[in-house]
Structure formats: structure tokens, C-alpha cells
């Protein structure tokens, strides 16, 4: 939640409506384990994309990729991957 553009009460729309979309609330910071795709093993079956509960995996027509702004590290993609191409790597201070 960036504080740069904090608005006053009069600058908000009426009725508990937000003025911005939730896409601006980046929730990837909650993650303890980071899914990393081994593209050498990936068969592009898109199982991970279907199972991701946060829609944090996308397909650009050539490969799948993970959006780390929203991935919370649940590990479902790694669990479901039929060829074990995704490994969960601990998030650390150094990485």
C-alpha cells in the first residue's frame, strides 16, 4: 500500500467505494516459499495456471510465468505439476 497518494475523506467516492482497483494492493510480500519453474522440464500443459487460486500464473502463447507481485507461495502449482517442473524455494534475505 503506497502512501504517496493518500487522499482525504472528501476526495473519495461516496458509499465505501474504493477509488482504485485491488490490482494496486500487491500481496506477494506474504510469500515464504517462492515457486520457480524449470523450463527444461515444463511441458506447457497449463495445469499450474488452472490451479493457481490467485491467478498469478499467466500464459503468453509460448511459456507460463509467475507474477510474484501477487503469488503468495501456497505451492498448489508445484503440487499439481505432472512433471514436477516447479520447485518451492525458501524466500531469504539474500535472494
Amino acid at each position, binding site marked *: 500500500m503506497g*502512501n504517496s497518494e493518500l487522499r482525504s*475523506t472528501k476526495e473519495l467516492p461516496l458509499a465505501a*467505494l474504493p477509488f482504485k482497483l485491488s490490482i494496486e494492493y500487491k500481496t506477494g510480500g506474504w510469500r515464504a516459499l517462492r515457486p520457480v519453474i524449470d523450463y527444461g522440464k515444463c511441458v506447457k500443459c497449463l495445469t499450474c495456471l488452472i490451479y493457481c487460486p490467485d491467478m498469478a500464473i499467466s500464459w503468453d502463447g509460448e511459456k507460463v510465468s509467475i507474477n510474484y507481485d501477487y503469488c503468495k507461495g501456497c505451492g498448489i502449482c508445484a503440487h499439481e505439476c505432472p512433471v514436477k517442473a516447479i520447485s518451492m524455494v525458501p524466500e531469504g534475505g539474500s535472494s
Partner: protein
Amino acid sequence: MKNPRIPPEKQIKMTLNGDEAVAYAVKQSLVDVVAAYPITPQTIIVERFSEFVANGEVHTEFIPVESEHSALSAVVGAAAAGARAFTATASQGLALMWEILYIASALRLPIVLAIANRALSAPINIHCDHSDAMGARDAGWIQLFVENVQEAYDTTIQAFKIAEHPDVLLPVMVNLDGFFLSHTMEDILILPDEAVHEFLGGYRKVYRTYVDYLGKEVEIKLDPENPLTFGPLDLYDYYFEHKIPQIEAMAKAKDVVRKVNEEWYELCGRKYGDGVLDTYEVDDADVVVTVLGSSAGTVRYVAKKLRKKGHKVGVIRIRLFRPFPHDEVAELLKDVKAVGVMDRAISFGSYGPSYLEIATALYHLDRKRKKRPLLVNYVYGLGGRDLDPGLVENIFMELLKIAKEGEVKEPLRFVGVRM
């Protein structure tokens, strides 16, 4: 009195009880959605209204739900989609609506909720007191308390106009005393349908607001063409800012209640004090009693009797409890010697709810004027216990004594209970 646009002889006389009067008012108010669950003493409102629906007399979508929590939730959804929506409940039913009450007010949905006031369990009791409504007093709803069946009819229609006013946009509770009003027949005057439609300006009109992510001004309603998110996550960064408009809307509501009361008077010749407070012989009074709801008639009857005997007594009926008219009450009471505040509810471990408000209202008089009235709280009528004129007379006589002696020995008194 100037001539009302629709004089009494052009109005229709009907013999209705309070619940039927509310149902009839809703029938005439072009309500799009009603979702309700029956509970004594509110049941007749829902019963009568479902008959209107079954007979094809209204266009309303009636949703029979499985609980009051669902009733208010359905009505919240309907109002968020732009409908004029109504529900009704009492006691335990209102208690079950609790969490949705706060959502309805924060989403600024102009819902009208009729409450046939009833005591809360335990022990189980179906009769009148104000514990149900008073428990909901902090939920952000406008709260009106009516005195008789005619006022229940009039106020239900007014409630839609108050709720939907662009300065307000808050839900409104219309409180009528269970059984004393809900089940008591009275001859009342009903307006022609067209007059009510015109008074409300036809179907509900949805207020517009500017939304950044759409880059335009849109109606505040659920609409696939202009999708809005109602009440999403809002943490320490914005929650506080979202509460301030609710507070400001409440402050503005007082004037709107007055204005709507005046417009109603011009339409049909009936008004209830200034819409906020209904006073009787307060100007030169030494002693004033404040009261809410149907008990006001009994209190006024006794005050009239005592006036004839030369006692300077007056009555204030509080019609609008939320937002509370603190300044107005203080102005009326500033020269009074003793005030008795009657409450049909108690905040356990404290006083009656209206006593707390009036004590707050009077506190600042002291600083400006170096004096303020003596104040006593009379808690009465819990669980429907009758308040007879003799009990009210005792209250007035005790207050006259207090006014003379200048001292309050017990600020919290219980009326009509075997101690």
C-alpha cells in the same frame, strides 16, 4: 394552519393496526424489493404485504427468506442494485440482523426497516420495550420513534424520502411500539396512491458519484456496464476516511427530517412537532419529562391534568433518536429546573439510552450559563409492563419536589416494578 394540498376530506379513512398501516404505506411507496422473515409483533406487516404481492396490487419482488440475517442481506443486495427496498423485524430478529446493519449504513443504502419494538430474550418476552432498537443505536441508522398508528403510516412514507435524500443516503429505522401500536386498531387517514408517488418523486433515483478507475461519474449501483466494488478491504490507511462521510451524513439528516416533516404537513396537514422533537407546554415549565414512542400520549395526558392544577410541567417526545438532537434539547431545557428522562430500555451497568444523550446535551449548558437542570432517569415498561397515568403522576410529583429542594438523591429510578 394553511390549507394542505390534500385536505382531510380528500383522504381515505381506514381502520388499521400499526403493522397494517406500515404495510399499506410500503404498498404505496413504489417499493421494488421486500425481503422479510416473520416475528411477533412485526408479523402482520409481512403478512399483509405478501397479500398485496399475491393479489398483484404491487410490482414488488417479495423474497421469503430463511432468517432475518438473510432478509437484510437480500435487501442490501437489492438496494445496492438500485432498488427501493424494505424489510421489517423485531427483537431477536433485529439482533440477528446486527452485522448487516453496519454494512447497510456504511454502503449508504437508503433501506427502510420497520421495527415493532419488542423486548430481547431472556426470559423470552414478546411485548414492547426499546431494547432491540437501542442495541442498534450505534449502527449508523437513522432512528425514528412513532407515537400512534397514524404516525406509523406517515413516518414509513417519510422514511423513504429521508433515506434517499442526496444529503443523507442512510438507512432508516421506523420504530413502532410492539402491541401498543403494532396490534392496536386506529382510524387513520390514508393518502391517495398518486399523492404518495408524487411525494416520493416516483421510483427511487440513484445518486451518482465519481469513480477514478472508471474515469467517470456513475450511479452508485451494481451495474455490469459500470462495475463497482462495494465495501472492499480498507485497512488503517482508508477505513477512518470512509467513516467520516457517515458521520457528516448523520449530522445533515436532522435538517432533512425537519424538512420532510414540513413537506408532509403541506401535503396532508399532519406534522409531528418539528419532525425531530414533539413538545408540549415546555416554554414556561419548571419540570419536563422526555419520552419516546407510544407512552408519550399517557405522559401528555397527565401533564395536561397537572397543568390544570397549576403545576408548570411539560413534555418532550423524542421522535428522532439517531441522529440525536443534542443542541435542540439543550435549548428547550436550559431554563427548566428538573428533567425526568423516561427510558423503555436500560444499558446494563449504565443508565437508559436517552438519559445518556440528554446528560450529554445538558453538560455544556453549565459552562455557558453556570446552571443546568437537575436530571433523573426513569426506567419503565420493560417487557411490556404497562405505564398507567398514576405512575406518570408520581414521576411528575417527584420531579416537582426535586425542583423545589434542588437535589437529586437517586439519579436512576425504576418505575412500576416490584423491588
